[in-house]
């Protein structure tokens, strides 16, 4: 039963947030965004359905908000148990074959037949042990990769198909709700599409980062074969296209996502940009004394944040003028962190480039003079909005919604993967205090006009209302 309490003000409804590897157990920009949304929509009840890689207990890293009812954490990869050994009806095999054929070709999948064919309670993996699956995998290999290692193709296909079969179980596990809101595409979007196919309730997908870009970036770092990479990308593309097929409203946080989304089959009429918002009152500008400029990168230490590019840029700048660099964020990839540390030592800039680990950003914005991000992929970075609100000029890579946010003379953008261009912009700001202050003031103004949490909350409240009324 859905009750609209008062138009645009109070919406008595239940929304299920579907996340993948993020809220509420893994910190990061996406989780921050989800937390802020829930915190701001006090009149909406939330169910949380969080998809994690494996079955394991992970503690919450966010305060449990009073409008959250239940949190269901389900693994993507499941160990062998009675449920996974459960036999699927033979009639389901044809649907599965059609389904996985589509997945291996990167197509949008039709889920209705499958949802009705998979018995409630368990989507067993018996098909993966059947001759029907064996013929399917052989045919696909011969069609796509007949000159590569068959064993590798087999395991990759099997692994991906097994994960997808496991994910069909979501349809039996997702909590009941009036609206399903996925905070990303990928498996979260796929789970949302399943919910839509099964329950015919409105589906919203917010796409902060671009899933396919992120997977591509992951792959360039991993030493995997071409065949594995190709299969993974097609599989990911298929999930994205499927979620676009079922979505009622696709909500990117910036305009720059739209052409990429429409290229992947999203209906432009279903797209609505809603800017991210921050709690402006927490991020106030402060006086910046004359000192050796400090350039701060507020990001987790993970490859996608381009930390090695930042270090190389830092080396160029440190050689030219007095400056300090600080990396402010959790180390979430130890191997990458060690790689970065080695690079810092190798370049001999250890005295001027520090890794600070987990910090409280509110305390750190006043200590920094220039905000920077060297990311290879981004959506709309929260840290950037916060820094702008605090009156910091920015030098960032032109990824995701960053160029849009930094337009209007509030910062510089350079192409990703070009440390020398980053260095050039740092030098431009380090040598010109007036420019820094001027850009910072403009940034504060832009943040307060466009990126407030209230505005974001109102926009989503309106969207939920529209979907429920229109459904």
């Amino acid at each position, binding site marked *: 039963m859905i009750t609209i309490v008062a138009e645009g003000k109070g919406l008595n409804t239940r929304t299920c947030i579907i996340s993948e590897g993020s809220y509420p157990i893994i910190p990061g920009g996406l989780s921050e965004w989800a937390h802020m949304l829930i915190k701001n929509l006090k009149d909406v009840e939330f169910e949380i359905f969080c998809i994690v890689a494996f079955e394991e207990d992970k503690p919450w890293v966010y305060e449990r908000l009073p409008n959250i009812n239940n949190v269901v954490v389900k693994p993507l990869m499941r160990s062998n148990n009675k449920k996974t050994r459960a036999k699927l009806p033979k009639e389901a095999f044809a649907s599965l074959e059609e389904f996985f054929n589509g997945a291996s070709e990167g197509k949008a999948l039709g889920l209705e037949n499958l949802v009705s064919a998979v018995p409630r309670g368990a989507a067993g993996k018996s098909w*993966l*042990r059947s*001759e029907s699956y*064996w013929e399917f995998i*052989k045919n696909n*290999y*011969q069609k796509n990769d*007949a*000159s*590569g*290692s*068959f*064993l590798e193709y*087999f395991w990759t296909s*099997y692994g991906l198909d097994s994960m997808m079969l496991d994910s069909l179980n979501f349809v039996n596990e997702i909590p009941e709700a009036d609206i399903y809101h996925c905070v990303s595409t990928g498996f979260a979007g796929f789970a949302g599409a399943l919910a839509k196919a099964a329950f015919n309730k409105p589906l919203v997908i917010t796409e902060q980062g671009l899933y396919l870009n992120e997977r591509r970036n992951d792959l360039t770092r991993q030493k995997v074969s071409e065949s594995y990479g190709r299969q993974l990308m097609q599989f990911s593309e298929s999930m994205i296209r499927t979620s676009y097929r079922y979505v009622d409203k696709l909500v990117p946080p910036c305009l720059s996502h739209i052409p990429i989304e429409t290229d992947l089959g999203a209906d432009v009429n279903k797209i609505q940009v809603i800017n991210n918002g921050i709690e402006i009152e927490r991020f106030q500008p402060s006086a910046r004394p004359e000192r050796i400029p400090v350039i701060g990168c507020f990001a987790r230490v993970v490859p996608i944040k381009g930390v090695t590019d930042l270090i190389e840029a830092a080396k160029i700048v440190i050689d030219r003028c007095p400056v300090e660099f600080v990396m402010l964020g959790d180390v979430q990839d130890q191997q990458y962190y060690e790689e970065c540390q080695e690079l810092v030592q190798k370049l001999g800039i250890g005295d001027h480039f520090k890794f600070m680990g987990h910090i409280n950003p509110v305390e750190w914005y006043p200590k920094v003079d220039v905000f920077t991000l060297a990311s290879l992929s981004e959506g709309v970075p929260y840290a950037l909005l916060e820094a702008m609100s605090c009156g910091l000029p920015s030098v960032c890579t032109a990824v995701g919604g960053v160029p849009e946010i930094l337009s209007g003379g509030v910062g510089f953008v350079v192409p990703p993967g070009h440390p020398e261009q980053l260095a050039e912009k740092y030098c431009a700001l380090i040598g010109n205090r007036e420019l820094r202050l001027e850009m910072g003031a403009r940034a504060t103004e832009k943040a307060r006009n466009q990126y407030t949490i209230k505005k974001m909350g109102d926009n989503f409240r309106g969207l939920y209302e529209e979907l429920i009324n229109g459904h």
Partner: protein
Amino acid sequence: MGIEGYNLTKLFKPIVNNPGIRQAVLFIVPSLVTTTISILLFSLLTDFNSTQLNHLSITIFAAIIISLVGAAGMQLLIYRIIEDHEYFTEDAAMRGIKTGILCTVIISMLMVIIGIPYFLNVLNFSAADLLIVIILTLIYSAIWVITSAFWAAEKNLYPAALFAIGYIGIFACTYGAYKINFSYTLAGFAIGSCFLLVLCWIGARKAFGKQAVVQNVRADLRRIRHIASQNAGAILFNIIYVLAVFLDKIFVWIVQGRAAGGGLSILGPYTEGAFLGLIPMLSIGVVAYFSIKTKVLVENRFKGTLIEIQNRIGAYKSAYQKGYVTMLLAAYILGIIVALLGYRFIGNTSVIPVLVTVICGSIMFSGIIFNSMVLPVFGKSSVSVAAVLAVIIGEIVSYPFIATNVWYAALGFFIGSLIGFSISTFYTLYLFSRFEFNMFNVLVKNQ
């Protein structure tokens, strides 16, 4: 494929030119030497009356059967240790042998301890007799483990040479002691067996080198336990297989012993016919040929493109077909020779029906063993276990009828082997008909 339809020239050409046949010959040589010497030795012990000869035979057979059962699982583990170095990264063979001997001795001694009341109360063994059984069990437990290490490392010349020389030593010691005083015969046999063990140990040191790493027995036992848990099916097969070979004989000895008012009565037409009837099983030497021929194919079975995998499967199937037909042919030929010689030379006509029936059973049994090499490729060691269990069941079912005619024991062995042979052959062919699928399905099931 029928034997008639098989091109014999094509069949034998690759086998004779292949090192596999040399390996098979190396298996047959020691087997023939030991069989010949044993027959010769027993025929020369004429000073014994039937009770004394029976007592001597029980002592030797008890030690050999107990040690074989005790070592049955360990032999397989030694194969795994030597082939897979991962558990015993350095000095794999010597450390495996030592730990294997320790485990086998423990298992065998446990069996002896369980059997002590039977030895003392039913068989009326003295403490000295029991001591001889224990000593012989220890010796042969160690010998079987060392021999399996040679086989696993494909150093088959060693057991061939060592057994040929060692059995001449056993013959010399036993017969020499017998000639001094017939009551020393068992002691002579034990000294001869000791000589064989020493030879085997020296051979192992020479073949595998000195041990460079100090042995951590507890850690090695842990490793053995880990490998054992991973190979439980195959271990079970080995144990049941050894039991199946002897169970019919043990049943007959019990029944004959009861009839004679004693514990076990070994001597008689059944023992003669049943042991000679096992000679066609020497054809399982072809297994060595088959395993060498297919070793690389099996190791690389998942490598490369699908076409390469399919080509390897084709080669494997062809090797199986050739090996299987060769083994059956060899078993038939050996069976015919043994049957003809038995008919010509064995005076006791009641031996012949037993001999012929056991020969037929042995041929089938060889098929079970051959298929047990193939079934693990599909993760189906359980089928091999079921096949040898069928033999055991056949033997057990025949037990109530043995008192009326000992031939029923041979019939039980034959029918059980026939059923086991049918199970393993049909299942193997069924798996072969969808080879690729079944081979990959094992990966999926085990992941």
